Structure formats: C-alpha cells, structure tokens
C-alpha cells in the first residue's frame, strides 16, 4: 500500500507570464532606429535654401544645375522664378549643410559657361554637362542667404595669391578680360577689369599679378602696351620684337622697372596706381618730370610737320610738337603759324664729367641754361626728317651768325627764335650766289684777258727763237764730243775682252800662284806631323 501522501509529487507545469517581451521586439526597435537615422541623416545633410538673383536664367535648369565650389557639388537648383519687378530671375537652391560656412555676406555667385577668350579656354566641361553656378566664398562671418549673382565670372578668385594694381592709360588698345601681363616675357598675370575714367579722358585697367611675381612690381615699375609687333629700323638693321604669339593676337601688357633709378624700398602695395604707356620705348625712357612750353613761328610752310614730331637738339630728342595753329591779330598784320612745342629740360641738364648728379631741378636754373644756349645762337629750324615722306621735325641748332636775340620769358608761352631752314635756306644761298655773280665786271675782265693773251703770244715767239739758236750752234758741237767718247769706250772694251792677251796672262799667273800655295800647304802639313824631318830629312815609307 502506498501512501498517496507519501507518493512523490508530480512536477506541475508552472504557467506564468513572461515579464519581459520577447527579444524579437528588438527588430522593430532596430528598424525604427535605422529608419530614423536614415531620415535624420538626409534631413540634417540638407542645408539652407538660398536665393540668387541673375539677370537671366540662361543655361540654368531646375534639378539639373548644380552649385559648385572648386568643382565640388554643394547644392542643387530647386526653383527658378521671375523676380517681382520682372527684371531678373531668382534662382532658389538648396545648399549642403557642409557648405554652410561658404555662405557669407560677401560670397559671390556666378554662372560658369564655356568661355573662349584669347589664349584661354575655360569652362569647357560645361559644354556637355550644362552650365553650373559657382560660388566664390567671402570672408565675412555673417551668414547670408539672399545673394545677387555676378554676370561675369570674377577674374581673381580668393585662392589666387598675388596683388592687384590699377593702370591708367590713354586708350585700351586691344586689351580685354584675361589679357596676359608679361614680365620679361614671362606670363605673370592678367587683366581683371577695365573701365573708362569718369571724365572719359582715359581708361583704368586693373591687372592681377600672380605671386610670387608680384614682388617685381615696385614704385619704379613702368607698364606698357605690349600689343602687336614692334618693328624698328635703325642703324643696326631691322629689328622685330614682340612679347609672345598670344600677345600678337590678343594684345598684352608688359612691365619692367627702370634701370637707372635708386632701388625702391619694397614691392608696391596692392591697389597701387601706375601709368600705362603706349610702348616700351616710351615707358622705359627716363621720366620727364618737368616741361617748358615754347612757341615757334616759322616763315615757311608747315606741311609735313605733325603733332608729336620730335624736337631735336643736335640728334637728341628733347621735346615734341604739341600743336600747330594759325593766328592773326589784326586784318593787316601778317598771318602767323605758331608751333607749340614741349621741351623737357631734364633731358637738357648737363651731367658733369665727374658723374655728380645735376642737382635738384628748378625752373630758374633750366631757364638760365636755355638763355645761355640762345645767346650762343641756338635757333629753331624746320628740317626734313624723311626725304621719302617729307616728314619734318624741329631742329634746335647753333647758328653763331644769327642776329642776337633773347627769350622773353614773360610770354605765354615764350617765343623761341627761328631761322628758315632746309630748302628755304638753300634757296636763299642760291640767290645770294647769283647776286654775287651778278656783281662781277665781266667786260673789264675780258679786256684785260685779251691784253694778257697778246703778251703771252710775244713771249712764246721769243722762246721759239732761242730754241732755233740752240739747234744751229750747240747741236753740232755736242755730236762731235759724243763720237769721241764712243771711240774711247770701244778701246777700253777691247782691253777688257775675254780673249784679250792681258786677260790670258793674268789668268796664267794666278794659276801658278795657286799651285805654289798648294805645295806650301802640303809641306806645312808634313812638317806638322813629322817635325823631325827638318833635321833628319824625309823618312821612307815603312811598308
């Protein structure tokens, strides 16, 4: 019998509720986390929406046009709308969050399209991919989202090292955006901007010189147009010079520092202004700091004299013609033709031989020099510079014979005395000679001449008589003397002939003398070798 109570208790299934949910619920949690992360990632990566105003939306397409910084996509165009005033388009674009700090108040936006200018081709990739909007980040820290886009890409971007300078010239020449700037024929920069001066009297050209070449631009530097080909014909022959092939086609600017000036303290500051000269010769000549204006009145025609013609002082160009004009004061006064010239006294100042500099410029000093020159007879004269083209130039030269004169400095401008020159002078000289010829007494001269001829005739007759006398008296005597001399010479000749007896005798005697001399030589020789033979007599040969 078994005690049911003693029977082992059967294990009973414990039915309980799990307090914790199954691990399977981790899956939706993970899914939610991943989903949230994906959404959050996308959401957070989206940056601000910016608007950019352009004058036209040429090449910009919604959803396709990108905003790029250094060719990296940082955003998309989301919408293009026409502005409220209908004068521009407003492009809305979403910019990546990472590019947030590129959006400062002075950031610049511009559309990059394919551009071909002179020697450079840019944006070629946009031919296929379409235009894109490029950003040029600013320096301001302030965030900004409403921009006004640039119509032209800026020539200088912030990542370019170098300096910008402004050049002032008379004309633009063939310069354009991006035209190269040369330093010793190395391309070191380009034109970034040009504009007319506000008064319209010149142009201002901004150039950007890349580092490290920007340090070659100093206060002594002169810039000039290096456009085209420079052909010069001088005493050394034909010389053709140009900066580069690209410069021939699209022009260029070159610069160089003046050689004979004291070295400047350092490179020119960014934004410094320079003069843009028309050519190299003009740029590199020493600067003409001072000038004196003179008026010259020439008696002859001014045809062939043009504005800019040189004023030449014995081969040295010291000035140029500024203007030609006509003036008359009263109806009865003669019409005069004033030629205004500029003279640069700096070029006239003497450099003393010991090399000391001429000292500071003063107007009084330079006028004193000119006064002295005029007192020595310096006058202006028109001369032909080129026989083919008839170009005239003004020569200043010394004419010691010229009548004394002095410059009246009170005139505005003072008048420099002139002399007729060139052809006029020749004409005057010819007339003078003709007048002198005219004064010669030709009739009187011819009478004297005929008298002289008569006396000459008598003299000739006298000399003829003398010759006849010589012929009749002196000649026979001379003939006789000559015959005697001939005989004497013949006798001498006979004595000296080769087969003459005297000659023969002398030859024989000489032969005998030679034989005895030979015998004596043999004897002397023998005695020298055998001195004993004087005592013993000649020994027999021991054979």
């Amino acid at each position, binding site marked *: 019998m078994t005690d049911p109570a003693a029977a082992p208790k059967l294990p009973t299934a414990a039915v309980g509720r799990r307090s914790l*949910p*199954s691990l*399977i*619920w981790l*899956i*939706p949690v*993970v*899914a*939610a986390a*991943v*989903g949230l992360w*994906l*959404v959050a*990632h*996308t959401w957070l990566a989206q940056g601000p929406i910016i608007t950019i105003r352009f004058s036209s939306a040429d090449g910009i397409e919604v*959803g*396709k046009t*990108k905003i790029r910084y250094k060719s990296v*996509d940082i955003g998309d165009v989301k919408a293009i709308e026409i502005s409220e005033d209908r004068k521009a388009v407003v492009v809305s674009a979403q910019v990546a969050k990472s590019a947030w700090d590129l959006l400062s108040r002075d950031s610049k936006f511009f559309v990059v399209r394919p551009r071909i200018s002179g020697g450079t081709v840019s944006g070629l990739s946009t031919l*296929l*991919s*379409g235009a894109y909007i490029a950003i040029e980040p600013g320096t301001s820290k302030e965030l900004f989202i409403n921009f006004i886009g640039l119509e032209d890409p800026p020539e200088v971007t912030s990542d370019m090292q170098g300096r910008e300078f402004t050049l002032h010239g008379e004309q633009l020449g063939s310069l354009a955006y991006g035209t190269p700037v040369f330093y010793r024929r190395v391309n070191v920069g380009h034109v970034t901007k040009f504009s007319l001066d506000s008064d319209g009297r010149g142009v201002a050209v901004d150039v950007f010189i890349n580092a490290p070449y920007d340090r070659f631009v100093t206060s002594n530097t002169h810039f000039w147009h290096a456009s085209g080909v420079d052909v010069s014909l001088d005493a050394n022959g034909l010389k053709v010079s140009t900066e580069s092939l690209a410069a021939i086609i699209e022009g260029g600017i070159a610069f160089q520092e003046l050689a004979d000036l004291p070295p400047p303290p350092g490179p020119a500051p960014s934004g410094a202004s320079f003069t843009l000269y028309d050519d190299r010769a003009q740029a590199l000549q020493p600067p003409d700091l001072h000038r004196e204006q003179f008026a010259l009145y020439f008696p002859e025609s001014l045809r062939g004299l043009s504005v800019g013609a040189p004023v030449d002082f014995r081969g040295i160009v010291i000035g140029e013609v500024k203007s030609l004009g006509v003036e008359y004061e009263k109806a009865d006064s003669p019409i005069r033709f004033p030629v205004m010239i500029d003279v640069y006294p700096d070029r006239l100042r003497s450099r003393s031989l010991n090399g000391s500099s001429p000292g500071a410029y003063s107007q009084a000093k330079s006028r004193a020099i000119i006064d002295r020159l005029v007192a020595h007879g310096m006058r202006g004269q028109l001369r032909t510079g080129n026989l083919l083209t008839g170009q005239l130039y003004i020569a200043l030269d010394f004419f010691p014979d010229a009548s004394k004169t002095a410059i009246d400095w009170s005139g505005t401008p003072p008048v420099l005395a002139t002399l007729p020159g060139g052809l006029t002078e020749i004409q005057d000289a010819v007339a003078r000679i003709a007048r002198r010829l005219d004064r010669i007494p030709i009739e009187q001269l011819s009478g004297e001449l005929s008298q002289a001829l008569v006396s000459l005739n008598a003299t000739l007759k006298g000399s003829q008589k003398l010759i006849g006398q010589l012929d009749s008296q002196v000649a026979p005597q001379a003939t006789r003397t000559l015959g005697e001399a001939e005989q004497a010479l013949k006798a001498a000749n006979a004595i000296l002939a080769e087969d003459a007896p005297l000659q023969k005798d002398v030859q024989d005697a000489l032969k005998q003398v030679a034989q005895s001399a030979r015998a004596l030589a043999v004897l002397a020789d023998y005695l020298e070798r055998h001195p004993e033979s004087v005592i013993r007599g000649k020994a027999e040969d021991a054979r």
Partner: protein
Amino acid sequence: MRTPRSLQKTSAYVVAAAILYIPANVLPVMHSSSLLVEQDDTILSGVVYLMRSGSWPLGLLVFFASIMVPLLKIMALGLLVWMSARRSRAHMLARARLYRVVEFIGRWSMLDIFAVTLLVALVRMGRLASVLPGPGALAFAAVVVLTLLAADSFDPRLIWDSADADD
C-alpha cells in the same frame, strides 16, 4: 508543430517593416550620374517618370510591385495578427486565403531591388555613366525581407484557434 510565439514574432516583423517603409519611399533608391545629368531617384519618382514618358503598363507594374504590394502585405499581415490576437471568429476562411496570397506574392516585391542591382552591376562606365544604390534601396530591401519573415513566422493555425475554443 506550432511556431513558438508566432504572434509576437510576426507583429514585431510587421512593425519593423512598417517603420522602414517610410524611408524606403522617401529616400532615393538609385543615384545615376552621366556626363549630362546627375540625379537621385526615389521609387515614386521612377514611377512618375515612367508614366510621364508614356510607359503606362510598366509604370503601373512598378507602382503595384514596389509600392502597393509591400504596403498591402504590411496591412494584411497586421490585420491577420490583430484579428488572431483578438481571437476573432469573423471571416476565418477569407483570412486563410489572404495569408496564402501574401505568402505567394511576397517574393515579387524584390523586383525593384533586382533592377537596381542589375543596373549598378551593368552601368559602370566611369565618368560617362554610373549608377549607385541609394540609402532607400537598403530600406526597401529590409522592408521586403521583413515582410517575408513576418509571413513566414505567422502560423496560419492561429486563424482557426478561435474556432476550436468555441467548441
């Protein structure tokens, strides 16, 4: 043999699939870049493109296979789980049929992922053209896999359990 904790597993899978369904449709599935264009496509934008370009049948196919089917599967499985948990006795035969349909069409939802993987593998021309999968593709693949797992872990006998309890 019954699937242990079938209801819990299925409902967990369904919830996860439902959550991932959102990024799968919002985020781009495919990133295609060529010389001319570079663009991101979501499933819906692909459908819209197909419809606009005139391929109505193809557009509808993609719309059903990639958008409607996963959504319907999630909703159907959710319904099945919910009703089984409540031990509802309504439309038990219809629910059993629904389950079979869900299990059958599940695999066809991978069509999109298949197309994207094919494109990624085939269109590799460097700068000329290339296709890369987007983050949406991952989410979409997860949705499809999770609905398959949910359908697999659901025990159809649960539908009939309430009928037994009634006896």
